[in-house]
């Protein structure tokens, strides 16, 4: 084309240049396209892998009865196969089999197949999984009577139901006639019964009487179906008592115990109260400065001097207020012997009530357990010819029916039955707490922990980040210092997260938490100097405020740029910093504060240990840069004409920010929140240091006040994945659940993000702003 144009004689001054080959971008477009494709492909692989594994784990599988050439028999769920090249030993075995005529010549060469079976029955000593080469298998069938028993402990049991037994332990006089077996008549017919002597003393003996109310696979299955509901109800009731009611009573008893200690300490506390006049003065000063603040607010027009004056007065008010609260001569003070005794009596009474309640609960549990103990089932592992025991230490007693969460006839299950079972398993997984060892039970508290942590993190990081971003963009003058701060913030995002974990543990848990628990400790300053320091602080603040008010002539007036003004401003700045430092130091060393939970120290720190609050703060720190950067960008994207329009209407700077800038940058703020949430929810390393545990004793959220327990440890999906896959004693069996849990984590992050995105879309839609 270009050539043709060039060939045409161009009249006059017009000149044409030929288009260089580099102007045609097709090769680079192809390159970019394939790079994108690569990225998309990898994302797709991850998603398919997680979803495929995660969704298939809970799908019900059939049970095979495998007979090996050695005569060994086992039941197992086929879990796939692979080809392998036999090693020497295996080759020798193949040759032997060939010679015996068990294998045909055709199979001698090349790779061979081996199958993987899930065995279960760990309490009988079986492995969780087993690889079996195809040539070892003599026969393989799917027996209709095989069942998979899901249990709360020891994983699944695969076997054949053999009998339902009603078992009773009876103490009777030693001279009663004893028969080994007899028939018991019931309305449903007669059942064989056996008796066994468990122990015998001179006059009495304890016998175990077992009545076989069902025998053989068919009858047993029927009976199991009949009794299962009641058994589960009993078990659930026991669980509820053990998991909720008993711990609640225990907590109350512990609290009462601590309360007792608190009273005892208070009774022995001889810390003298401050003089009343000092307290009166501070209280007056506090009220006066509050009134002053209101006065300044109303009297002065909005300007920097007003803000400075307000700040100075506010600090003064806070300082004096704090002192007034800590000092409070007539509220504080020690308990008299008598008062202490009254309180101790009350505590003792409450304790006895709680103790009684515990006894009642325990006896109820015992009663339930006794009834539960009667109904037993014999599920037999045909290979070992042993039934599932009630406990590993009692192999001669069959398991209780209630120990089975579900008895599944895996090979006779129809498609609908499979789907129902699959959904029920998901329901269990999502709604139940984890069992004693990883891989058992569900993940409900883990989900709760993750969600609560993420919410706490968002709630703490967003306001902080937004305020910081507003200051950086709207108030701070854009200079070298601001740039340095901005660079520092951006670099903060690159610090390895474990560093934040260390910081969180050291600063939040031990330092801040320790301070909350026990106050600054014994190394407090003597009283008078402390009070002097407060006075000094107040003076400093007032001085700085006055200086600042004087120095803050508006910048447009030429006087604002002079050297003396700059000096005054720096001096003010220095004074402010000094005052703030002093205030922190004072709070740190105050002799008046003894902590909120001192009575539990040192045995049981409350906030001075790992907990969900500190974990959230740590993650907040970690994700702060994300929020600041996103918010700053959004604020910077608000056109200056909007601000000018608002200011031109007579709005103050703050009103402009509140009503124009912040709403317009809300989508950006939410983007920051989404990013922070996504990053925080997936973070594991720092959590291991500041509060995530394998098995949290209590949930960080409760249905009763105070609803949120910031001091409690929690479970987290990320950490749970790590635990399941790599920390559990039977990691191999738990590994499939790793995928399911991963799927959940991804889903939760996705749901949180989607929620934020919907909110963002709503906001943008309502304001009609489109792309602000």
């Amino acid at each position: 084309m270009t050539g043709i144009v060039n060939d045409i004689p161009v009249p006059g001054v017009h000149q044409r240049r030929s288009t260089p080959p580099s102007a045609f971008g097709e090769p680079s477009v192809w390159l970019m396209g394939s790079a994108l494709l690569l990225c998309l492909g990898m994302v797709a692989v991850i998603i398919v892998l997680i979803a495929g594994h995660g969704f298939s784990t809970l799908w019900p599988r059939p049970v095979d009865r495998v007979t090996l050439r050695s005569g060994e028999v086992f039941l197992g769920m086929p879990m796939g196969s692979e080809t392998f090249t036999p090693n020497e030993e295996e080759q020798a075995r193949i040759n032997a089999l060939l010679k015996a005529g068990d294998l045909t010549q055709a199979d001698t060469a090349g790779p061979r197949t081996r199958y993987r079976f899930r065995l279960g029955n760990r309490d009988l000593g079986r492995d969780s999984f087993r690889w079996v080469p195809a040539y070892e298998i003599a026969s393989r069938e799917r027996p209709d009577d095989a069942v998979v028993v899901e249990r709360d402990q020891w994983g699944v049991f695969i076997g054949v139901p053999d009998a339902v037994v009603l078992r009773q332990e009876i103490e009777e006089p030693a001279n009663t006639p004893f028969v080994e077996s007899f028939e018991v008549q019931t309305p449903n017919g007669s059942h064989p019964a056996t008796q066994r002597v468990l122990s015998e003393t001179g006059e009495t003996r304890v016998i175990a009487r077992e009545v076989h109310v069902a025998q053989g696979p068919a009858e047993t299955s029927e009976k199991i179906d009949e009794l299962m509901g009641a058994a589960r109800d009993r078990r659930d009731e026991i669980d509820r008592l053990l998991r909720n009611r008993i711990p609640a009573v225990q907590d109350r008893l512990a609290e009462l115990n601590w309360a007792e200690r608190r009273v005892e300490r208070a009774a022995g506390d001889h810390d003298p109260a401050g003089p009343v006049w000092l307290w009166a003065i501070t209280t007056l000063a506090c009220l006066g400065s509050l009134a002053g603040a209101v006065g300044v607010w109303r009297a002065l027009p909005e300007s920097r001097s007003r803000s400075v004056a307000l700040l100075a007065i506010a600090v003064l008010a806070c300082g004096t207020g704090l002192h007034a609260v800590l000092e409070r001569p007539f509220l504080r003070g020690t308990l008299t012997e008598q008062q202490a005794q009254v309180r101790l009596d009350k505590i003792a009474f409450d304790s006895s009530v709680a103790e009684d309640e515990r006894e009642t609960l325990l006896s109820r549990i015992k009663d339930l357990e006794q009834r539960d103990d009667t109904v037993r089932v014999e599920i037999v592992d045909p290979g070992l010819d042993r039934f599932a025991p009630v406990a590993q230490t009692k192999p001669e007693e069959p398991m209780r029916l209630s120990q089975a969460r579900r008895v599944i006839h895996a090979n006779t299950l129809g498609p609908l039955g499979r789907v129902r079972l699959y959904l029920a398993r998901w329901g269990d997984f999502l709604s139940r707490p984890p069992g004693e060892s990883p891989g058992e039970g569900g993940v409900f508290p883990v989900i709760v922990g993750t969600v609560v942590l993420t919410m706490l993190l968002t709630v703490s990081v967003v306001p902080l980040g937004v305020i910081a971003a507003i200051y950086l963009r709207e108030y701070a003058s854009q200079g070298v210092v601001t740039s340095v701060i901005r660079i520092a913030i951006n670099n903060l995002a690159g610090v390895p997260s474990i560093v934040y974990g260390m910081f969180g543990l050291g600063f939040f848990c031990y330092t801040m938490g320790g301070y909350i628990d026990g106050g600054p400790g014994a190394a407090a300053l003597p009283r008078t100097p402390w009070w002097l320091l407060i006075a000094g602080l107040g003076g400093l603040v007032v001085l700085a405020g006055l200086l600042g008010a004087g120095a803050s002539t508006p910048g447009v007036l030429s006087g604002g740029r002079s050297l003396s003004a700059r000096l005054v401003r720096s001096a003010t700045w220095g004074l402010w910093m000094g005052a703030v430092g002093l205030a922190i130091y004072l709070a740190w060393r105050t002799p008046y504060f003894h902590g909120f939970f001192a009575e539990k120290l040192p045995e049981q720190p409350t906030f001075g240990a790992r907990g969900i609050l500190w974990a959230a703060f740590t993650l907040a720190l970690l994700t702060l840069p994300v929020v600041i950067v996103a918010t700053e960008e959004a604020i910077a994207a608000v056109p200056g004409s909007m601000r000018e329009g608002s200011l031109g209407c007579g709005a103050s700077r703050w009103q402009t920010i509140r009503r124009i800038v912040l709403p317009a940058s809300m989508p950006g703020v939410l983007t920051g929140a989404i990013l922070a949430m996504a990053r925080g929810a997936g973070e594991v390393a720092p959590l291991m240091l500041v509060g995530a545990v394998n098995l949290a004793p209590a949930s960080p959220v409760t249905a009763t006040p105070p609803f949120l327990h910031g001091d409690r440890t929690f479970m987290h999906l990320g950490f749970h994945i790590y635990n399941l896959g790599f920390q559990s004693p039977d990691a191999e069996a738990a590994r499939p659940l790793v995928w399911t849990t991963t799927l959940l984590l991804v889903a939760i992050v996705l749901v949180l993000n989607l929620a934020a995105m919907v909110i963002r879309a709503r906001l943008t839609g309502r304001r009609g702003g489109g792309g602000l």
Partner: protein
Amino acid sequence: MNGSNGVVSAIEPIGASEVEPKGIAEEPKPSGRKRQGSVLDAIRRGEPTKATVHPEVLTEDAVIEIEAFSLWYGSSRALFDVSMPISRGKVTALIGPSGCGKSTLLRSVNRLNDLIDGVRVDGRMLLNGAPLYAPHVDVIDLRKRLGMVFQKPNPFPMSIFENVVYPLRIDGVRKKSVLRDACERALRGAALWEEVKDRLAAPALGLSGGQQQRLCIARAIVSDPEVLLLDEPCSALDPIATQRVEELIAEISERYSVLIVTHNMQQAARVSRYTAFMYLGHLVEYGPTEAIFGNPKLRETEQYVTGRFG
């Protein structure tokens, strides 16, 4: 005051008399022929020049007095000792080539330039006799008394209704009925009511450019300001809307004083009583509109208003 010493020192020091604005040139001798010599060339060369001010403007009652006002954006100077009174209850037009400082002057009146880092001013500005740039002036209150409409329409990303009543909202007015009445009055005043009365809750950014500009005018007049500052309010409007806004200006000039920047000579001639011609940050000529457009004292002004400027 660096780098432009020559100019500053060449102008008489102000403050000798507070009443009569100085720094304004004496009326040139009525010699019959227009002053020759190129004032604009002198300005371009940075030589000291004096503004030509017709005596009529000095006899008017001034709502704003600008006295030897200079402004620097960092080290570059945008206004050079501008001195002019703005008449109360009249429309005053500012004309001049692009970049001559019209917007800067307008924005200086309600101190919007304060917000720009590095801006510095010198000289005085008085609103009803009170200095605007004194240290303890309440800028917020000042801006409430001066309604401003910007060169580019800048409605807020909220509903039409909320846009109009924004100045009342920030004053804490909450009563629905008050807000609704004020909104209707302002929208009628800005000749927008008929077009938007059925969709007051719709987002303002969905309006056309011209409608947005009239919305901004409504926003500027809703709080009943004393002076209206209009920075090329019609640059985004079609002829019909322009005519409406011009009628509006004529209407409201009975109540408000209006300072309007425009590039449209006909518009300046139509709406304004007085016209000021600016060039490169200097006031060149200031007088009654008929005089500026009919019989200006300077040839440069004549050339500019007739379009033979160069």
